[in-house]
């Protein structure tokens, strides 16, 4: 991320060196680039600080020299941070995979039903389902904990998977419903004439064109589940997820700042990589959250 920022001024400098620069310069354009670059630097500042602090040794981490470059670069803090986050990273990994896959599959089927098999009452049920993605989870978490205790899923990864699947259903259903709405009904009619039923149409016609929908949903759910904190800290303190582990580590006053920053970096890395590699789909999921995306 941070390596892409310094590349920008160069392109402008190259433009600046072009002959006749002063004659046809568009100061408005320059101003636009200046503002954008200032904002970019501001947005990247925390990233720079994280990396700068992480590569300092404990001896060099001092609040008065926070912005100074270390005399000696070291990567021990990453090793220490990894040791402390290991369990959290593992737990999050074993949570995020089933959580994402199950909610994506259910969302796909729900979206298929709600867009292609409309039934009386569907227009009431769908908004009622959607409301579930906007509620503050504080309003359901007390009964949720009681429920998980009675079914012996409290303080366990399967319990967390259940929560993320259920409360992920509204958004996955929404994304797939909007996605399948774009599929012309004629395609399904043709299949129906050939004798395909509900599952046949899904398997032979809908599923083969669902890949982009699945990519958007999987990225979205992966990011959401990986980054989630309230369920983790309330339901599964015994099996901490990565965000809970990071919070525990930074909440305890004894951990050095270089280790904290390295831990923050490690915790952010998976979702950050997904975003950098598949940003286009990430943005689609983002905009789907505003319903009409």
């Amino acid at each position, binding site marked *: 991320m941070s390596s892409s*920022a310094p590349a*920008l001024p160069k*392109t402008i400098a190259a433009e600046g060196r072009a002959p006749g620069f002063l004659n046809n310069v568009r100061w408005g*354009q320059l101003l*636009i*680039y200046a*503002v954008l670059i200032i904002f*970019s630097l501001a*947005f990247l500042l*925390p990233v720079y*600080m994280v990396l700068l602090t992480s590569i300092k040794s404990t001896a060099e981490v001092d*609040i*008065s020299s*926070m*912005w100074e470059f270390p005399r000696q670069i070291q990567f021990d803090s990453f090793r220490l941070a990894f040791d402390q986050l290991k369990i959290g990273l593992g737990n999050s990994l074993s949570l995020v995979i089933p959580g994402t896959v199950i909610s994506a599959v*259910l969302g796909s*089927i*729900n979206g298929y*039903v709600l867009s292609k*098999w409309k*039934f009386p009452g569907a*227009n009431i*049920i769908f*908004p009622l*389902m959607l*409301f579930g993605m*906007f*509620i*503050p989870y*504080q*309003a359901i*978490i*007390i*009964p*949720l904990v009681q429920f998980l205790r009675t079914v012996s899923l409290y303080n366990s990864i399967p319990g967390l998977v259940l929560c993320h699947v*259920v409360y992920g259903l509204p958004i996955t*259903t929404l994304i797939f419903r909007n996605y399948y709405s774009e599929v012309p*009904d004629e395609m399904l009619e043709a299949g*129906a004439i050939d004798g395909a*039923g*509900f599952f046949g149409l899904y398997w032979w016609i809908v599923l083969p064109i669902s890949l982009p929908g699945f990519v958007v949903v999987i990225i979205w759910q992966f*990011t959401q589940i*990986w*980054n989630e*904190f*309230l369920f983790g*800290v309330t339901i599964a303190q015994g099996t901490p997820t990565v965000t809970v582990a*990071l*919070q525990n580590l930074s*909440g305890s006053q004894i951990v050095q700042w270089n280790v*904290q920053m390295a831990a*923050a970096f490690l*915790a952010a890395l998976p*979702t950050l990589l997904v*975003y*950098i590699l598949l940003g286009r789909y990430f*943005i689609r999921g983002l*905009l789907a959250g505003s*319903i*009409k995306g």
Partner: protein
Amino acid sequence: MSRGSKDRMIAILMLSPSVVLLAIFVYGFIGSTAYMSLTNLSTQMQLSEQLRKAQEKFIGLGNYNSFMTSPLDSRFRIGFVNTLFFTLLFILVCLVVGLLLAILLDQKIKGESIFRTIFLFPMALSFVVTGVVWRWLFNQNSGINLLPTLVGFPAGTFAWHTSQDQILQFDWVNFPIIVSILVVVIVVLPSLWYIVRQRSRIAMFILALALLANTYLLLIAAPGLRSAMVRPETHGFNLALLAVVLAAGWQMSGYTMAMYLAGLRGISEELREAARVDGCTEFGVYRRIIFPLLAPITLSAIIILGHISLKIFDLVYSMGGGDLLSIDMPGMFMWFETYRGFLPARGAAVAIIMLLLVAVVIIPYLWSSLRGEPENE
């Protein structure tokens, strides 16, 4: 459609597990929380299960009344006032920064995708990561405060999230009156404008609701509070919230930018060109053509950001919010009451208040977004 009724049954059958799950986990649990909020349930360890059950009784709106008036519950009111200030400022920052960046990125500039990536990447992070990182940057003797020294200015002294300063102070008994004035400015006047200009029925509905709310606030809540409060209690805008706004704005401005950019890309070049031909200046094109077309996006953004900020928990928690009353929020208070104070009934009451705040913005939004959709069949 010509598909068989047997398959239609299968379709409904396939949807039903999700519907049943959500019915229980959303509506059933909300109902259970709402009921619990009307009791005095306690889960303190010393009490045996039986004793707990025996002590539990229905106390009506007791918890809610206590939050609004009891001298012991000023923490709730601090968080409540904080949420309102935070929400307003957070939305404002995200809208202004997001719109500015979107407009700049829409000027056919080079490296647009790089800029876009930079402005959006914080969205991929957890609020916990954001909180941990910004807490380090907000260190009073370091971090952001040291930045001015890099260019020769004296270091800043603002204590950021640990600041104790408060401005715009008011007495809690005046709170209903202040809210009713805000309702007039933010809701009543704009909806009047929409009614006159476009005869919008939604605006009439919203106006009716706002007038109803104001009647309640001025005729029932204000005198009630005045007689119930035993002593004056000062609240206000805690400057420490600026730190939370900055961190949250850093994370979420890219979101509004993406929404606005998607909107700007939907406005055709012909339309802009037509306006220019008609003699509009570049600024005029924005004022007369583009901003009006972006208005629905602004409304969506306000609602999405508003519901995020009203339920905010993890960012404040990771910035050390448990110990800092000046950045306390209902989400924090709810969690600490329930899981540290072992008073889930009171936690439930906070949660229901949060739910109501969110529902007020979300339900009309869901209703109006889905209403316009055509029905197949």
